[in-house]
């Protein structure tokens, strides 16, 4: 059972890593002026909810399977994702707003955030991998 949990988490984590990389690539495209703000934001906003769901599922799974440490590790990031999603002003077009992304260094902070998430997911990836192998051996 435990192995199944970690296999699933591992797959989920892989998806999140890919998503983070995708965010970084798209944002840096915008930075380099290869795409315009409008299409960049609509691309990214599409993936905000999947990312949020994907990450929340892992966190909940860890809570259910009573892996406290991993759950607590995931909690801040999951909370941040949800907070960011909820706090979008009613007039904005999503977490990424094309009219504001070039203002007040928002692009840079988004970039930083995506980088941190990538690091975090990589860390989680290896942790799940280790736990999975451990669980498989124990089985």
């Amino acid at each position, binding site marked *: 059972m435990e192995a199944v949990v970690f296999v699933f988490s591992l797959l989920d984590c892989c998806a999140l890593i890919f998503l983070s990389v995708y965010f970084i690539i798209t944002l840096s495209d915008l930075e380099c002026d290869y795409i315009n*703000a409008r299409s960049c934001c609509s691309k990214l906003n599409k993936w905000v909810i999947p990312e949020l769901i994907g990450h929340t599922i892992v966190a909940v799974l860890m809570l259910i399977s009573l892996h406290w440490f991993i759950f607590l590790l995931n909690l801040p990031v999951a909370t941040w994702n949800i907070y960011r999603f909820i706090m979008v002003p009613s*007039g904005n077009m999503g977490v990424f707003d094309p*009219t504001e992304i070039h203002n007040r*260094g928002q692009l840079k902070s988004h970039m930083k955030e995506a980088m941190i998430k990538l690091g975090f997911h990589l860390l989680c990836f290896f942790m799940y991998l280790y736990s999975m192998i451990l669980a498989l051996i124990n089985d």
Partner: protein
Amino acid sequence: IARIPPMFGGAATSGAVAPTDPSLAPHQQNGPAQSQMQVPSGYGLHHQNYIASSGHYSQGPGKMTSLPLDSQCDDYYSGLYAVPTQNVMPPSTANQQAGAQQIYGRGPPAPHLVGSTPGSFQGAASSASHLHTSASQPYSSFVNHYSSPATYSANSSIASQGFPSTCGHYATSAVSNAAYPSVSYPSLPAGDPYGQMFTSPNAPTVRPVKDHPFSGQNTAIGHPLPLPPPPSQQHHQQQSLSGYNTSSWSPSGLPVSATNPTSTDSSSSAVPPNVHLPKSSPVVSTAVSGAPSSRMPPTAHHPVEPVTSVTQPSDLLQQKGMQYGEYVNNQASSAPTPLSSASDDEEEEEEDEEAGVDSSSTTSSASPMPNSYEALEGGSYPDVLSSSASSPAPDPAPEPDPAPVPAPATPQPSKMAKPFGYGYPALQPGYQNATTPLHSGVQPSGSVYSGFQQCPQQYPGVSQLSSSLGGLSLQSSPQPESLRPVNLTQERNILPTAPVWAPVPNLNLDLKKLNCSPDSFRCTLTNIPQTQALLNKAKLPLGLLLHPFRDLTQLPVITSNTIVRCRSCRTYINPFVSFIDQRRWKCNLCYRVNDVPEEFMYNPLTRSYGEPHKRPEVQNSTVEFIASSDYMLRPPQPAVYLFVLDVSHNAVEAGYLTILCQSLLENLDKLPGDSRTRIGFVTFDSTIHFYNLQEGLSQPQMLIVSDIDDVFLPTPDSLLVNLYESKELIRDLLNALPNMFTNTRETHSALGPALQAAFKLMSPTGGRVSVFQTQLPSLGAGLLQSREDPNQRSSTKVVQHLGPATDFYKKLALDCSGQQTAVDLFLLSSQYSDLASLACMSKYSAGCIYYYPSFHCIHNPSQAEKLQKDLKRYLTRKIGFEAVMRIRCTKGLSMHTFHGNFFVRSTDLLSLANINPDAGFAVQLSIEESLTDTSLVCFQTALLYTSSKGERRIRVHTLCLPVVSSLADVYAGVDVQAAICLLANMAVDRSVSSSLSDARDALVNAVVDSLSAYGSTISNFQHSALIAPNSLKLFPLYVLALLKQKAFRTGTSTRLDDRVYAMCQIKSQPLVHLMKMIHPNLYRIDRLTDEGAIHVNDRVVPQPPLQKLSAEKLTREGAFLMDCGSVFYIWIGKGCENNFIEDVLGCPNFASIPQKMTHLPELDTLSSERTRSFITWLRDSRPLSPVLHVVKDESPAKTEFFQHLIEDRTEAAFSYYEFLLHIQQQICK
């Protein structure tokens, strides 16, 4: 794609193009001017072809969508500033229309030019809309359009209800149109055709607006061939060409075009018999008989050709004493000398390539060649030291200027006339017109030029002097005026009596003279700190304030095949570049060394060779280039205007339609545009009404679409019509509109769907949508709820709902912006209308916002008058379409936040669907790399736009500022007005994103931080006193004014819409107007004298001193004028002398002054004349004519007046002195 740019220079091009259009033939007989006129004649040709190509445009989406450019906004985004290879239109599209063919005349291979002769074009391309074809054609296309299963058959509700009846209606109308005489609708009484309008609201209905017998009109209009130009045309063009560099845009709109249609009407053929319109007024029927052919003949346009519109009589120029005195003389001797395109034949292809487009993907490596830089330093420049030594002297007297001060008649000081230094000299700059003799025409222009000759070479020399040039000079001279410490708490009269002018950057004399006018381009710090650390220490905001498209009286326009730009950063050549030798110049932004193209070596003004630094591009920091086809992604769009009008009960009650239609009727001929100009109308209440104005119809047809959930265009081709071809129908409609909805009971407003329809209508071409709205949108997409709680209006705590409630309007604005459409909002509401949400439609589409609270055409005459005046300006002012603005700055600086109405497309590129002369912008800057190795930084804005005449133009402003290394110098160069405006912009952002109280705190902190930072720099710092440098002495006053401004005030009852509107204005107004809004000017006007008066156009304008905004200055015996920018108040004290009241107001005594007085009578007394001339002078200085209110001391309206007295204490806010004490307290903490 193959491109053959070089082979069509001069004669080659005109030779190749000639067969395509007979009208070009006269040009070729032009002898000496032939090759030189190549580019302009291309435009002239283009111009005539607009008539033909308008057919293409009116063909609407069907054709336009086939262009790859329009299919996706992404494409357009990336392409507008695309790499050169993307620039060339595919031959197939180029072949589709004459416009493209002409514009890309130099681009596509020759066969295409030959292939698209007029015959083939007219035969193949635009038969449908080409006027003489039968009226049934559009309808059949309409039917086709709607019966296509892909689009609408899916929607069963429409298909079942709408379609059969639609087709039926159209069938009948088509038939009746085919038989012209039987077009009357006997069942409908002509006088009241709208009585039954709503009987079948579910089906699109077609109704005639008016019965209108009709005969032979199509022959009058369907004249497909462009008329050959009369001989006068060439003359015009030559004149305009020869005058181009000294030219100026006349701000009074297009008077020529206004007079021409009537005068040239006789040239059009086949006048239909005079038609008596049953409903129209006598005035209109005479207009109809006078101008029966609604199409404007081409001749009418020649006087208003683009180049001509910027010419200025040379004698006027001489009076102005501009530096072109010599050029003017040259032109006088050889009048038809054209300008810069004389060497077309020798043009090399590499330059053509270079003239390309902005592209971030330019791969050429920037190699700032340090060697050549060093090598230059070896040269000796004897003038450098002397000039740099004299430059920093903050001498207010004009004596160091070689030229006598040529003050213009307008209050804006010209960029050459800067006699003032750091201080605020008693001698009022710009006011000396009266005293300056007219000898400036014979000024020693030679000396100016000798100065210019050295100027570019001085630059490296100056930079060699050490980066702390400003610092050295400041130390050597006694402390400059701007650094004189001022004890704020003890200085009672802090406000100077003369208006505050922008400080002049501390540059050497030549650069100072060349620098950009502060009216267009200002920086908050005229001495740029060397590092971000220094900037942080100074605690001052760093940013730019721009007014790029302002009406200019003097603007050099450059027609050149090669627009010289830096190869790596694409900076346009400007006065601050350095010429390394005759053949190379060094970019002042990225320091790359570029070649001087061959064409640039020739100076067409002096007709000399080998003096690139005398070219107008290098002599003026504000220039306008006429761009080549490299700067176009598609043919320049025509001017397209769409009016979207609220006709719900509320709107009819307010009665704005009468004013709007009247203004439009008056200004229809003055709308900026060429013969392709198109116009359309959409009205809406709970349904959307379109108006078919296709010429050929006997009267406008109203088409009602009631399906607001899925809006469609009933006849996409005939809703936006050519202004000149359908002028009669448009006039009919405008006459009928105000009375059409008088009995409506519809209270709902479906603004969102109407906007969607407008977007669909505009997306093929782009243009301007003017939305008139009078209430909260209550139906369909984008409906809004009332969010304002009236009890919270005077709350001191939280002000909510400053941001939009929905993203609908933002999305729509971005869609519009992608299709080059701007949405201008006129909100005329009496109750809350959620401007915060509605404003988004203009904010992000580069539109403008006008708000008329409690508008009613009878009950509120002052608002009605304001609307009328604003509309006049709005309709006739200059306009630029499909514009982009890029701001560049010297390496090391970077821009991070932009303020204004636009969409930031990429890091430094602002997408402006429209640009108007009243739009201002602000940019925040940060210093990313240390600027230690340079002594000057430059900023350049380039605004690329399509003029209303269909020309692609680039307006370039360049500003040069010194870099300093000491904190004292940073303070010495503060431009306090610019800083306040930037802070206001930042505070608006803060209050929307965070909260109003945060923004207010930030404003107070800005003063506290900067003054305490300054206090720590001066050695003899007394903690008891509040010390500010002279340059910052007004800072606390202005911040207090901001805190009491409608946008940021708390405690005083402020309606949410008023507050939001004030915020919108802060974001989009240019600095001059914004300053008056923040800190009004107060004058005492009951004792005007001629002392210090100035003369403007033979009028004596008295110059009363500024009074501080405090009730202590108001005396009961006086009368005071307050200039708040968009409104004037005249306050009459109770004890005001009866003489004044009688002489100026025309009333016998104080008691008899009416409560609502908005005009001063024209009385023949000296004091009346003085007062009126002063007010007129103030009015003339701004684009939107302010409304005048005469406020009696005891009237209830006086609170309006008193709330602007910002130095006084109110129950909710500090007085100025208290505010100072508060700041002092904060500093000491």
